[in-house]
């Protein structure tokens, strides 16, 4: 029993040893850097550019755009335009038709023989018998040739002509003169006489040309030619050669058709061609010669009563896309079901990326689109009747044009800018104290990115801080017209006009010693003050702006008197208490190595997410100013130490931290009596801030 108790005691000892403390691991005292920041003036001044002078002293160059006038909003407004137009097919054209008819001397002899008149029979047989030889031809009269049919129904069935002509050569291949030749052309079915002509004489082996006006004629697809009568004086007692194959030829054509109505199997023919200008009014008196569309559309509505398919081609002349392709849009208009029920189509085309010439078809005007419309009947192989009352109605509109670039004359205008107030954040973190600057130089830069000349008048320029204001006094600048040149188009280069303000010509130093947080300004802008010079060389693109920039050059030579900066930083030392539970308290050391002749007193207050102050980590922590040498420069930075004691409970409170407010008060300090004026800040000045942890840390190692 005693032995059992002995064993039990041993194990109880083990168990007690293991359970006597909930904590585990061990605490170590760590002294380690946490973070360091080497601060130059460029870290301390936001949005600024530091330049170095020849003596290595620094200038702050602060650039701020206080105003950007977007001309594209006013000068690039192109109103919608549209036109609706009807076209009749009064210019309906049919192709030229040719036809030839002839008869030989042998055929004429047979014709004489067939008359049965003895003299004619004798003569006919004699001529035939003398073929190849010669003969003294007697005079004859009252000769005729039976009618010859000509079938043109392959081209049209019937046609009512508004205009049209028939012309041709009548070639006499016989060895005798033909006289008093009368011939007729008649519709074969209707019998209407189309041509009835009498030709006095056609010498042997000669020809005559005739032309006949067919206007107002009704022509059928089949018609006849007939030599109703002709005479011959014979060979005047002289033997003439006999060749029965000699021909009398009628070689005619019908051309220049303009039909009021035609029934035909129409071939593919152009039925409409129209080119015309459309001029629109642009507000503001702008006279544009060219635009490049960033957005926009061409909308086309076509209504056709033509009972045949049409291909309609719309061309916006002088419009090309980025690939150099013209804006040409073709649409097929199906045949109208009937003359009273037109067929319609509606289409829209994207104009984005197109450049459009607005100088008209003669390139001598402005704000003018030039359009060409062509309509062509597409042959269907089906016989249809088209009349001159058949029409095409075409409506088109150019809408929502948003130009990327316009050229021409931009118009004349006067624009008021302001009075407006712009935030000025250069001194945004300074909440108190005074600063005495040795000098301030300010250049007001008018950067004109528009290809339009103008004048600018600065009417007001005032620095504001809360209720305090200081207005610019600069007689040579304020309320004077300042000419702003136009930008260069190619290569694009904005025109810059600079207005220099300094102590010499203004009170600009007083404005900025106010440490303003707002700038108030008012301007008047005169666009094209010299009106239109007739060159039409203005241009405006969608990025064109008139920027008003402030370029401030602030030599860092100053005296600071309790110049107080305030800033808010995110401050989150850990996501939860659990993240920090290993830290059992300690301290954070602050080590400042100051190379500036400025003393700083720093407060650091930590807030939770509800804005409640949790802790004041620093109160009047002094970063000592570095000492100056006899030339008023810092040679050796000065170190300052401080310690923030952080207990375990304080650490847990800091876990709730959300942000921290830093308030720093700066004063220029000089240990040299000769350096009591403005102190220059040099490029090699640095402020190094180091935070180190002096913590008791619970190390819960697992081996």
């Amino acid at each position, binding site marked *: 029993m005693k*032995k059992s108790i002995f*064993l039990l005691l*041993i194990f109880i*000892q*083990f168990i007690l*040893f*293991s*359970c*006597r*403390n*909930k*904590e*585990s*691991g*061990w*605490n*170590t*005292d*760590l*002294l*380690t*850097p*946490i*973070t*360091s*920041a*080497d*601060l130059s003036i460029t*870290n*301390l001044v*936001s949005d600024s550019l530091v330049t170095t002078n020849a003596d290595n002293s620094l200038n702050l160059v602060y650039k701020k755009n206080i105003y950007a006038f977007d001309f594209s909003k006013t000068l690039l407004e192109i109103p919608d335009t549209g036109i609706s137009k009807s076209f009749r097919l009064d210019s309906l054209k049919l192709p030229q038709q040719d036809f030839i008819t002839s008869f030989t001397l042998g055929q004429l002899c047979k014709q004489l023989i067939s008359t049965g008149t003895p003299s004619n029979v004798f003569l006919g047989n004699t001529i035939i018998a003398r073929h190849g030889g010669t003969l003294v031809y007697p005079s004859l009269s009252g000769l005729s040739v039976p009618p010859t049919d000509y079938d043109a129904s392959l081209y049209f069935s019937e046609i009512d002509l508004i205009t049209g002509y028939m012309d041709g050569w009548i070639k006499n291949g016989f060895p005798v003169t033909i006289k008093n030749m009368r011939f007729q052309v008649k519709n074969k079915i209707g019998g209407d006489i189309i041509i009835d002509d009498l030709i006095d004489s056609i010498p042997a082996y000669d020809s005559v040309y005739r032309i006949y006006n067919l206007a107002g004629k009704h022509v059928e697809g089949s018609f006849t030619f007939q030599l109703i009568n002709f005479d011959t004086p014979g060979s005047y007692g002289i033997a003439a050669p006999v060749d029965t194959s000699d021909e009398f030829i009628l070689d005619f054509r019908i051309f220049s058709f303009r039909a009021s109505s035609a029934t035909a199997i129409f071939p593919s023919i152009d039925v409409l061609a129209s080119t015309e200008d459309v001029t629109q009014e642009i507000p503001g008196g702008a006279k544009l010669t060219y635009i490049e569309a960033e957005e926009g559309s061409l909308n086309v509505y076509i209504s056709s009563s033509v009972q045949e398919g049409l291909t309609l081609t719309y061309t916006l002349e002088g419009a090309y896309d980025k690939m150099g392709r013209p804006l040409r849009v073709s649409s097929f208009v199906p045949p109208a079901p009937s003359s009273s029920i037109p067929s319609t189509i509606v289409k829209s085309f994207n104009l984005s990326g197109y450049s459009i010439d607005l100088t008209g078809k003669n390139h001598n005007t402005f704000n003018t689109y030039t359009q060409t419309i062509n309509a062509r009947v597409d042959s269907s192989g089906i016989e249809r009747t088209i009349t001159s009352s058949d029409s095409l109605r075409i409506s088109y509109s150019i809408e929502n044009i948003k130009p990327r670039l316009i050229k021409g004359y931009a118009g004349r205008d006067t624009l008021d800018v302001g009075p407006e107030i712009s935030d000025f954040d250069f001194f945004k973190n300074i909440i108190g104290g005074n600063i005495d600057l040795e000098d301030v130089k300010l250049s007001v830069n008018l950067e004109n990115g528009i290809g339009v000349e103008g004048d600018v008048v600065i009417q007001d320029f005032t620095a504001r801080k809360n209720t305090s204001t200081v207005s610019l006094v600069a007689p040579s600048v304020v309320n004077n017209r300042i000419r702003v040149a136009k930008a260069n188009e190619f290569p694009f280069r904005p025109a810059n006009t600079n207005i220099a303000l300094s102590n010499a010509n203004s009170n600009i130093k007083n404005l900025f010693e106010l440490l303003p947080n707002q700038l108030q300004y008012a301007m008047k802008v005169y666009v094209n003050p010299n009106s239109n010079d007739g060159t039409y060389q203005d241009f405006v693109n969608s990025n064109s702006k008139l920027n008003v920039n402030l370029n401030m050059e602030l030599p860092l030579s100053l005296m600071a008197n309790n110049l107080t900066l305030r*800033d808010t*930083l*995110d*401050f*989150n*030392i*850990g*996501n939860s208490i659990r*993240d*920090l539970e290993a*830290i059992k308290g300690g301290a954070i*050391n602050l*080590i400042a190595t100051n190379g500036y002749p400025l003393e700083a007193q720093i407060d650091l207050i930590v807030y939770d997410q509800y804005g409640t102050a949790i802790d004041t980590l620093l109160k009047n922590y002094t970063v000592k100013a570095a000492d100056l040498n006899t030339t008023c420069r810092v040679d050796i930075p000065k170190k300052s*130490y401080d310690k923030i004691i952080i207990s375990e409970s304080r650490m847990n409170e800091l876990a709730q931290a959300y942000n921290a407010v830093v308030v720093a008060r700066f004063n220029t300090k000089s240990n040299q009596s000769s350096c009591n004026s403005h102190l220059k800040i040099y490029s090699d000045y640095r402020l190094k*801030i*180091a*935070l*180190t*942890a*002096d913590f008791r*840390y619970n*190390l819960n*190692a697992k*081996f």
Partner: protein
Amino acid sequence: MHSIYALRIKQDSTFDISNTLFKYNQFTIQPILNNAWNYKQKKNYLNIQGAFYNQSNAINTQIAHAILFKSFVDDKIKNRTFNKLRTNNGYEDEARWSIQYAHYSPKLKLSYSFAYTYRNMRNMVFNKEAFQFVFAGNKMFEDDTINIDKLAFEYMAYNQLQVGISKMIEKKNNCIVLGAAISVLQSPQYLSLKANNSSIYTAPYGEYLEVKYNMQAQQANNGAPEFFSFKGTGLSADFHVSYQRSQNWMLRFNVSDFGFVKYSNEINSYKGDSAIKFEGIVINDILNFTTPNIFKDFKSDSLFKILNIENSKKSFTVFHPVTFNLAFSKVILAGRGIVTIGVQQKTQAKYLPFVWSKFSYQCKRNFVPSVNVAFGGYSYYNLGFELVKKIRSVSVVVGSNNMLGLFIPQHFTSSSLYLRTSIVF
């Protein structure tokens, strides 16, 4: 009244080592008996045992136990240890439990054994400043340099499956036992760190640290221990030879853990040989510095990046520390007592020869107490005990090779405890 097993066994003309006092002569520095070498008369033998020991020449048992058993190490414990630190210090511990079955074949006079053992061990050597740095931090070294040289730490845990065989060669009153065992090792965890010629200078107020280091580390225990994961596999062998002269004296020699473990290429290897000046996280734009989340973000990855430590995944092989044990036992007090002296050596850095002695006395037929003393290894003085109680075919053993570290842990640097129960059938 008190019969002596040895004499009775001698009457049987058989060397039954398992039933003689010689079975008590194994020193508890190897607290797990390897029954592959125990020659049995009984046919079957089942043994379950668990043990723990630690020893050091500097770290007292209290701090070792606190770390191992995850209790808190307060400043008092640390300071007590700091006072004991020497220029070079060593520490080792091991915990294991085992179940073993052995079978004896009378016909062949062969004993076969099969065992499963879980082992968990650490060893390290370190200088005084390294220990102070780890346990006290660097604040005490402000404006001073911590030199870390010849630091070595190794931690290993593995499962061991062993098959053993032993053979007794008997001639008159002389008996030789030869035994060998081979084990398959499966290791889920391994961690090692070596650092040489390294130093840390802490500037006043901790403004910066100058760290010079030459280190390499391997880590195979990411996350929670994966008991059955095969991050590393290996083989090891044990050898045994003993000579017994009648029931009078015995000389034995053991070689243990001669083997290796090869870890797969998923193991993290770290290597660094460089010098840096660390000034904290450098902030380039303090006005837009949004989250000084310095404590949360200061994790191992960022530390490795700062220290330019190369992290790679590759396989590597670890050779076990091999243990050599030589012991001589002599039966005394008319066969009721046995005294053993021995020496043990391990292939570990700075390990001194461990000299030990054990005396066992059979008070009763079924109860044998022992005491032992030792010096060496990573420890100094050791005073231990062992109690053996036999109840029919069941034996229960409890012992320690240094009970001083158990009961006065704040003053002694070594301790051990083992429990063993076995049954023959």
